[in-house]
């Protein structure tokens, strides 16, 4: 009985985080594999290039952001085009709290003396402070936006959140002592926790690790924690309420689910995830500019959950990895002999790699929506079901 897939004998098993032994085993295998790959030269013989490791780090932090969007859009069905705003809020909060203050000497015309003027604010705080703070500030913003969401439905909500991105971009552009504005921007928070530096190579428990490896493990731990938390949310009372709202909000309300409260919860948690993801992602990038938090970034995150799989944790992660590694694939395509004169690395070329990437985003969104609305997760389910019944097709 135990080994029959898809057979659920009691309610506890149906509501479990891992629904079967197989899932548990796969989770373990993936975890061991991740530790092995991340450990690099220190643990196993296989060592990824620093470039590849950096991309993995980006992908893991982007996954946390995608999880956030999936909670509000996938789980609760409230399409939010404003994710870029919350990511930006997290990134800038972290940069202000964890960054270093920059000052300059200016001549005060009134007294004729040199005075110090703050160019960029920064408090140089520890990561233990700026990381939760980034999440909390973003969550507060989500809390403020949520009442609008309870009043609006469907497309209208999408527009309001789109407007949020433009307002946010304006604020990021103009609040120059905090954000550095557009163009050159500002340096981000330092990834330093209780004296442990993630931004320098060094020894960890006697093992020599590069900064990418340290960040990799930070990302892995956070992703596992936040992924399991999201998975837990999905199966809880809140998660069921959100799913009910997504499927039919009026019916949910009639069954006694308070729409306002649950939409509030969804927006707040989603923004918290976005804040954490934004803070970490840009801390690794190292520089923040206001242009980065445009509508395009929101579309990127929408693409992640659409391509990965709506309302699934594993889908969010797959989608984020897909999108983060897409530039690498495009670079590879640009190197192929047949394509090299169509896609050039030169910005003045016919289609440069960045533009080609954008076209691909667009086409992937369109393609997945028409052909496989469940995303990569759906493809995985179909492959799994095929082999589950193999050689029978039923």
């Amino acid at each position: 009985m135990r080994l029959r897939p898809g057979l659920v004998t009691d309610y506890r098993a149906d509501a479990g985080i891992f629904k079967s032994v197989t899932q548990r085993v796969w989770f373990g295998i993936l975890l061991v594999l991740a530790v092995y790959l991340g450990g690099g030269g220190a643990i196993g013989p296989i060592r990824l290039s620093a470039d590849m490791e950096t991309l993995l780090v980006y992908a893991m932090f982007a996954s946390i952001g995608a999880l956030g969007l999936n909670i509000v859009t996938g789980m609760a069905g409230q399409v939010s085009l404003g994710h870029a705003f919350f990511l930006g809020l997290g990134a800038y909060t972290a940069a202000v709290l964890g960054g270093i203050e920059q000052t300059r000497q200016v001549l005060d015309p009134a007294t004729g003396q040199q005075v110090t003027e703050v160019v960029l604010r920064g408090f140089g705080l520890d990561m233990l402070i700026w990381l939760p703070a980034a999440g909390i500030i973003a969550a507060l913003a989500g809390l403020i936006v949520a009442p609008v969401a309870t009043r609006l439905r469907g497309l209208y909500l999408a527009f309001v959140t789109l407007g949020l991105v433009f307002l946010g971009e304006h604020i990021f552009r103009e609040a120059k002592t905090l954000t550095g504005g557009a163009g050159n921007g500002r340096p981000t928070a330092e990834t330093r926790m209780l004296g442990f530096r993630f931004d320098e190579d060094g020894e960890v428990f006697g093992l020599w690790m590069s900064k990418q490896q340290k960040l990799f493990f930070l990302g892995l731990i956070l992703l596992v924690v936040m992924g399991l938390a999201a998975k837990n949310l999905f199966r809880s009372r809140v998660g069921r309420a959100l799913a009910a709202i997504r499927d039919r909000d009026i019916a949910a309300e009639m069954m006694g689910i308070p729409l306002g409260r649950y939409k509030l919860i969804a927006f707040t948690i989603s923004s918290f995830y976005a804040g954490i993801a934004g803070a970490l992602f840009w801390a690794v990038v190292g520089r923040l500019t206001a242009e980065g938090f445009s509508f395009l970034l929101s579309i990127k995150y929408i693409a992640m959950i659409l391509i990965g799989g709506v309302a699934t944790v594993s889908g969010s992660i797959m989608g984020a990895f897909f999108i983060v590694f897409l530039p690498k694939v495009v670079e590879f395509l640009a190197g192929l002999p047949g394509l090299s004169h169509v896609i050039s690395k030169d910005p003045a070329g016919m289609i440069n790699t960045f533009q080609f990437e954008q076209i691909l985003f667009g086409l992937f969104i369109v393609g997945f929506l028409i052909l496989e609305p469940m995303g990569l997760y759906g493809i995985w389910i179909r492959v799994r079901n095929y082999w589950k019944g193999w050689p029978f097709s039923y």
Partner: protein
Amino acid sequence: MSFLQALINGISLAAVYALLGMGFVIIYKSMQVLSFAQPALMLFGGWWVVYFATIVSLNFYVAVLIAVVIAASSGLIIERAFLRPMVGKPVFAVAIMTIGLDLSIRVFAGNFYDVSPRSTGDPWGLSTFNLGRLILGHRRLAAIVVAVAVLLALLAFFRYSRMGLAMRAAAFDQEVALIQGVSVSAVFAISWALASVLSTLASLFINLDLGSLGPASYTVALKALPVVVIGGLDSIGGTVVAALLVGFAEALTGTYQAHLTPYVGQNFSQVVPYLVMFVVLLVRPYGLFGTREVERV
């Protein structure tokens, strides 16, 4: 005086928003889809004006005519290739798909232009009328004239032509229209062609002072979205009212904000449409003139 000047500028701005906005509304009414691809279609259609007027150096009006034909046919192709397979899919899936389309077309069309904006080669240049102490650019006047003419022509089309009747029927009830023999797919196709043509016309006026067009004009065109939302997604009259409202609000902020509230930063007028949208939606969740959705469980 600067107040009256701002009002006149606001009207011409409203004309551009109305041109773009009507495209959104026509598509929404006929297929209940909000097309985010409108700004990208504007870049695409506008390019052909630039191309035929300045590079091939044809007469400007001939160039516009050719561009309109190209825009209409590309609208037809896009509808047939991408929108038709999505019939019956959830509203959001289609809306998000138009975002994807927008992204692809925008890169494709934006690539025609250089980094710096290009002149559309229009005959209006920098010439102005002087009305007392008010200054009215020829291009601004042309924008108002074109928008009013197009609006009247569209209303007449919907009111008197056979196709217009079919479109109204399809907007009212798709299934019933189908049963009555209306070709709903033709309605879809026509509405995309119309929207594409409207955005091409809007591209001529997107930069009201200089008449230039470039990839950055995209953000200006995107401001037609809040306009449509304010007016209510399915109301042409509402769009015109909202365009005037937003046009005035934007022109007035552009004139006074730098002196009165310098702390909100430069170019604040660019985000004013979104702010107006927030306020209007909080009070009226379906826009000023939008139809309230009736939901059945």
